[in-house]
């Protein structure tokens, strides 16, 4: 009898373990859509993220060693040969995978799933094994190979809502969690239970001059992202890996002619 109970508790626990981040259901499910038919590869989002999230200026030498830190980067893909040559851009940032390979990697829980469906990174907890980065199929994790400093007085620009990381820790896109937090605080101050659609705008989404990106809670069927996700052009990158990303790309449309 007792054994049976224990077993069912165990099975229950185990089931729980199989769920993304062990949650039955996310409070919010922050999701981003990126319309590649709008995206021009202008990289405004890249600088926006750098400004918002205190990304370091690594310098020429370290850039040459591929030690740059860009939480969002634009990948370029050529198709065809001259003169029938085409260029495809795709912004690549942490996909906040529901089944995140990086999360099983981390021995110390420095990266884990939070209640909002975000893949979070706890800098203080990270011991720098870099396993998460090896496991991440999107290669969007960036490591602090050094402690980066800012030439005086560039440090005055640093965003006080975001920490500055030291050598030896991993970092990556947070979906601008500080902005999510602010929106939640504001909602609470207004006696609202939930954040409204459009209230959270990550820095990259905010800046995008072609309005290629949308961000919101895909648990809310009325949210803009929920509608965008239904677009027939929608897909997720490396779908075959079953990471269930929280970023839905809308494929570039091609001119019919």
């Amino acid at each position, binding site marked *: 009898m007792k054994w049976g109970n224990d077993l069912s508790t165990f099975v229950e626990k185990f089931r729980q373990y199989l769920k993304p981040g062990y949650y039955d259901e996310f409070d919010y499910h922050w999701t981003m859509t990126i319309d590649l038919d709008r995206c021009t590869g202008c990289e405004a989002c890249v600088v*926006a993220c750098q*400004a918002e999230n205190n990304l370091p200026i690594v310098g020429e030498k370290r*850039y040459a060693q591929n030690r740059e830190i860009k939480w969002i980067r*634009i990948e370029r893909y050529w198709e065809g040969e001259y003169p029938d*040559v085409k260029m495809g851009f795709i912004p690549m940032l942490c996909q906040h995978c529901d089944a995140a390979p990086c999360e099983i990697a981390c021995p110390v829980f420095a990266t884990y799933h939070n209640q909002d469906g975000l893949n979070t990174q706890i800098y203080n907890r990270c011991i720098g094994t870099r396993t998460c980065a090896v496991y991440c199929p999107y290669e969007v994790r960036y490591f602090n190979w050094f402690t980066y400093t800012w030439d005086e007085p560039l440090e005055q620009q640093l965003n*006080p809502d975001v920490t500055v990381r030291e050598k030896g820790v991993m970092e990556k896109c947070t979906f601008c969690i500080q902005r999510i937090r602010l929106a939640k605080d504001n909602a609470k101050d207004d006696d609202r239970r939930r954040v409204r659609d459009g209230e959270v705008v990550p820095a990259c989404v905010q800046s995008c*001059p072609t309005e290629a990106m949308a961000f919101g809670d895909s648990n809310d069927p009325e949210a803009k992202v929920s509608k965008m996700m239904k677009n027939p052009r929608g897909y997720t990158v490396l779908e075959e890996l079953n990471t269930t990303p929280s970023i839905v790309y809308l*494929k570039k449309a091609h001119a019919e002619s």
Partner: protein
Amino acid sequence: MQFIGAGSLGVAGGVLYGESVQKDVELLIPQVVPPEDYSPGVASWYNTVCNQCSAGCGISVRIREGKAKKIEGNPVHPVSQGRLCARGQAGLNVLYNPDRIRSPLQNATSRESGSFTEISWDEALTTIGSRIGRLRIEGNASRVRLLTGSTRGGLDELFAQFMSLLGSDHYQQYDFTDPGALRAANRIAFGMDQLPHYDIKHADYLLSFGADYLATWLSPVHYSLAYGHLRQGRDGQRGRTVQIEPRMSLSGAAADEWIAARPGTEGLLALGLAHELLRAGSYTGSDRDEWASALQPYSPAMVAAETDVSVDTIVRIAREFAESTASLAIAGGATAAGTNAVASVVAVNALNYLAGNLNQPGGIFFNPDPAFSAAAGSRQVGMQGMLDLAEAMEAGDVEVLIVHDSNPVHALPENVRFRQAMENVPLVVALSSFHDETTDMADLILPTNTYLESWGDDVPDPGVGFPVASISQPVVAPLYDTLPVGDIVLALARRIGGELPIRMPWGTMEEFIKARWRDEYDGRTAGLEGQDFDAFWQASLEAGVWGQPGIVAGDPSMPSSAAMIAALANPVSEFAGDESDYPFVLHPYLTATFLDGRGANLPWLQELPDPMTSVVYGSWAELNPATAEDLGIREGDVLEVETPAGSVSVPALIFPALRPGVVAMPIGQGHTAYGRYARNRGANPMDLVSMQIDDRSGDLAWAATRARVRNTGERLQIIKTDGVTRTLGRQILGPKNDHA
């Protein structure tokens, strides 16, 4: 800190001790009596104007504890609509740049030495004021020259008043990115000095002749927004774009079709399209016959042979262009930088005229009712004006040269010899925030506030289809012992004396701007009923912008076609250099990151991968893969690129979307000064450009030089983020598309 002068060890020790204590006690708020709008931990946003290019985007700056933290687009500004480009975001690197000039400087010894000593503002202003004052009294005011970049709005007005009160008509502007050919052609075709509003947003067929409207042309953020809308902003309707240019730009990458016509023949292609459009009977205006006879020589067959674009393509594009409800043709980039640039743009204008795109949604709107009357760009002198200035300097006709926001020593081709000409000017005054190449040649440097610390106003040009004016305001207190440019001008006026301080009575730029807006307000009270000036001012200041969206395009009448027809000419560009000696065409291009090089001192931009190539920190020369293979050139081989005007050495980059026979080089690097991030990095392709000028605009034909390349055998690592730029069949850009 003046105590240090006392020199005794004890005092110095005391000061050092004080310094170290101050370092330890990091105050949350660095003021004794903080301004009342400082609320620790709470961000405030101030609206002002971006100054990183001439588009005039409205920006909002996030301030925490008195420090600027982030720049975003001003959501209520009609140009940027809350969005911003990479350069605009990097404005914080201007403000907090470690290489800013922190106090007035005087040349220590010789111009060449580049070493400066600190002096006081009083000393500096007195030196300049008395010298100019003397010239004014002697009636030699015309020996004072003022050169600025693309100064607009209140500051431009202030400079103009200053110079005219002084009695010198030598206030000129030079900005490499100024669309001189566009202005000249529009003047000819449309009789319009001001740039029109290009309504890309509502177009459904955009034909761009070399204009990289998504990155560098006129108003990149505004057009990017428009592009997004053109593509996916309308249900069930997706606009189409075609880009004609020898080297794929960002706009070319976005286009549905990229056509690498033979360099210098893009205008001719426009005429061929016009010819075909007319032949197909798409144009039915009363002046049809005049057009037909003017366009008669440009048959598709003839144009195809010249441009290397097939007859089929010409016929098809002409049909698509004519059949689209809202088509639009624009010109810029290399198309507007040949020896016959104006003719090329006129040809594109003709195309718009014939397709009925004028004053139509999705077409071109004329915008004759700007806020404030000064027509922008009117003081741009182009290359001819700069040659004249250099000549005057060389001849000893210039005694005082004041330079602000312009870097001719770097921007002009080497053979203008601007640097050498500066040697002949007894007093060069630079109003500048940075030690760029020109500033370093100055005798006196008056350090200016950056745009984020200054008052000003601006009328965007091109506009947005209705009157708009923006206000610049300081978003943070000045960091150093610097002054706003406007305040310097006013201070100089006071030192020079005479009529100047009487006619320019404002104590500060802020007062001047406010007065200017009061005038504008008074002139427009009809439209601003029910609001007194203070309320209007306050509202404009908070919004950072004022506009009248209701009022669209004052003059909907069609421009006459006669001038256009008369101005039609075979717009094929002449190239400097003989084809047999110089088998390549040199294609310099503006980059999305540095524009003409003004962004090169900003670390965020140096570290921003070039959007098309992903290269950072350096410059390069692009070759078509097949060409490179023929020449046995691999990426990273150092090439000597040589033209009749000069030669530079840069590493080779293989670029798939480049017409064979063209060598493309980004503009922007190659600084010999301009701070730690820019100095001694890459090469400046301007050093390769032969001095050829399009007579009709006076502008430099910077895309009309031939070149040859030689593999030096050396190698240099090109730093870039791209690994392999082919998808290798992986479904990264989407599930296998049905159109592939």
